[in-house]
């Protein structure tokens, strides 16, 4: 085990290396640039390739090409680059190409503030391309160590589900410095609860089964199996078609291979939710760390509050919202994104509230004031872009 002090960007790099990544294509962008820089240094050392692309469209397409040829591939960007992935992301989802996409969220829209954290791409990570008819897998680390393990897991899920997996981080996670333990042997990897599987190769000409099966090796070109894949709606052989029947089968596969194996994906942490708390705070990424501190402190003061910290964001873990209570979604945006899913998922009779900050974390004191107010029904004075009752 190698113990070090480093950033989330370094942790993601090392996680990718451990997971067997052999190709990184990216375009420099704050706050994900260091992932590209680290990859340019680390990949050649282990026989891998770094490609600095002419734009983000190229970056993800190069990754798709590499994965189509059998290499594990990853790219990393921030919001302004993530929107350019809309074009290739459809290709990767539709053709079931395993790869990993990191988005270090910053304040938006557009260029926004380059060095401040945001959480504006929650929905964009669910619908990162046009056309619908698919599910995405999105993971959200909240620490440097978890950025490492999430990256290893993202490669594992990408391979099993044969699809792109998105890591939705934020600037505080990717730029933040924390202690980091990197396993060096297969035993140490296993002891950390991490799994690595090799890049698999499809044998035989069929492109997909019209079922929800997972663990089917993806299409790999160059082995003379007659493999075919494209951006068009495919037949099970991978041929292009205009027949709607095949669209039904393809859509079923892209949606239900994920939904029907949700238990392999869903990850979360819960704090004080077993004794029917009156108020449950919900967050993901870096704000979840303030939320957990605030809830622990409030419990010490006798307030009956709990917290849910989402690690997997999509498919959305509706089933973990079991308690009928007041809910407070704490997010790094002002428009409220996660809150809408919480509102949809909670049991009848629950109330759902939203607290948004952007570019900086909420403070424990702010959250305490909010918890007090929500528990007592007291009206609070707040700037209207930060606080909204739903």
């Amino acid at each position: 085990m190698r113990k070090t002090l480093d950033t989330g960007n370094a942790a993601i790099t090392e996680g990718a290396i451990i997971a067997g990544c052999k190709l990184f294509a990216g375009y420099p962008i704050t706050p994900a640039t260091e992932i590209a820089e680290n990859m340019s240094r680390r990949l050649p050392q282990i026989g891998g390739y770094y490609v600095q692309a002419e734009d983000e469209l190229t970056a993800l397409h190069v990754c798709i090409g590499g994965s189509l040829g059998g290499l594990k591939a990853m790219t990393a960007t921030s919001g302004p680059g993530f929107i350019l992935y809309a074009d290739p992301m459809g290709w990767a989802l539709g053709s079931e190409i395993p790869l990993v996409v990191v988005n270090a969220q910053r304040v938006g829209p557009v260029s926004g503030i380059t060095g401040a954290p945001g959480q504006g791409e929650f929905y964009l990570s669910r619908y990162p391309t046009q056309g619908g008819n698919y599910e995405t897998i999105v993971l959200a680390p909240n620490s440097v160590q978890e950025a490492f393990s999430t990256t290893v897991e993202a490669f594992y899920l990408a391979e099993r589900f044969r699809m792109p997996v998105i890591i939705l981080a934020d600037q505080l996670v990717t730029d933040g410095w924390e202690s980091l333990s990197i396993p060096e042997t297969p035993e140490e990897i296993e002891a950390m609860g991490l799994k690595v599987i090799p890049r698999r190769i499809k044998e035989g000409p069929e492109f997909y089964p019209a079922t929800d099966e997972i663990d089917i090796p993806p299409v790999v070109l160059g082995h003379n199996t007659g493999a075919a894949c494209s951006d068009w709606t495919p037949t099970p052989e991978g041929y292009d078609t205009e027949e709607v029947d095949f669209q039904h089968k393809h859509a079923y596969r892209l949606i239900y291979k994920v939904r029907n194996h949700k238990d392999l994906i869903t990850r979360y942490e819960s704090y004080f939710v077993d004794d029917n708390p009156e108020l449950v705070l919900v967050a993901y990424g870096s704000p979840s760390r303030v939320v957990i501190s605030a809830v622990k402190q409030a419990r010490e003061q006798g307030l009956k509050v709990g917290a849910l910290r989402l690690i997997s964001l999509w498919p959305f873990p509706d089933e973990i919202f079991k308690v009928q209570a007041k809910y407070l979604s704490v997010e790094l945006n002002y428009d409220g994104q996660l809150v809408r899913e919480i509102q949809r998922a909670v049991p009848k009779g629950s109330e759902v509230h939203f607290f948004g900050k952007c570019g900086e974390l909420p403070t424990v004191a702010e959250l305490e004031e909010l918890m007090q107010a929500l528990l007592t029904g007291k009206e609070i004075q707040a700037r209207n872009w930060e606080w909204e009752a739903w």
Partner: protein
Amino acid sequence: MDYLATKYLRPRKIPSTACSGCGLGQVHKKVVKAIDELGLEIGDVVWGTGIGCAGRQTFNTWKGDNFAGTHGRVYAITTGLRLALPPDKKIILTVGDGDAFGIGFLHLLNCARRNVDMTVIVCDNLGYQSTGGQYGWTTPRGIHTDSSPYGNYENNWTSEGRDVLNILREAGATFLARHTSLQGQEAVESIKKAILNRGFSLVHMPYPCVTNFADRALGSRKPLVIYKWFEEHTCGLKDKGPDDFAFRTGIYYDASNTRPEFSEYIRNFVAEVQRRYN
């Protein structure tokens, strides 16, 4: 084509769904003929296409492995694929003029700069014909199309002293040629040279579109009319051509195997880093 078709192509795409009189089949045949004359087997080639007329008609016609990318992106996909595949595997791309010289031009230029080993056959029907006949980046000035109803007023990549092949040469391409689909064995020979070049090769192949281009530009859907127009507007690279518009044909630039190829270079570079630092 029958012998070649049986040997190399999937029966499901024969006959093609291209419009009657379309010249794309002539281009397609020349590419397959070049592959055959080089003695390549099905497993030696991965075939890529884009969308539009050229993409749709040539996707998955190849019996071996093949893929199609979204509009203009197939060169970027190929850059990644090139790194993953063994160096002796040929990657041949049949794309359209919009794909190569419009939406995908940035990727194309960067692939030429990197000298990524791929053979790009630009099947050029002088505009966007699969979407109904809009002007493109090789449509001659003044030509009437669905999106230039008063005549095309845009400068394009292949006239008034401009030649898109100049740009690609400056960018670093190592083999460049142009032939119309009406030309014979000389076109096949150029495609063979393009395939044999370990580096970025492009063969620009204008071909007649009877259904849209000929109808709007020449006022006739009789194949003979556009085939004649093609012949009248074809000349050698250095010949004096017609005043208004010319397809300048021949081998434009042959620097085959003189520049390091991208994937070969990066593989050697990585090996050197491993030797020095590990």
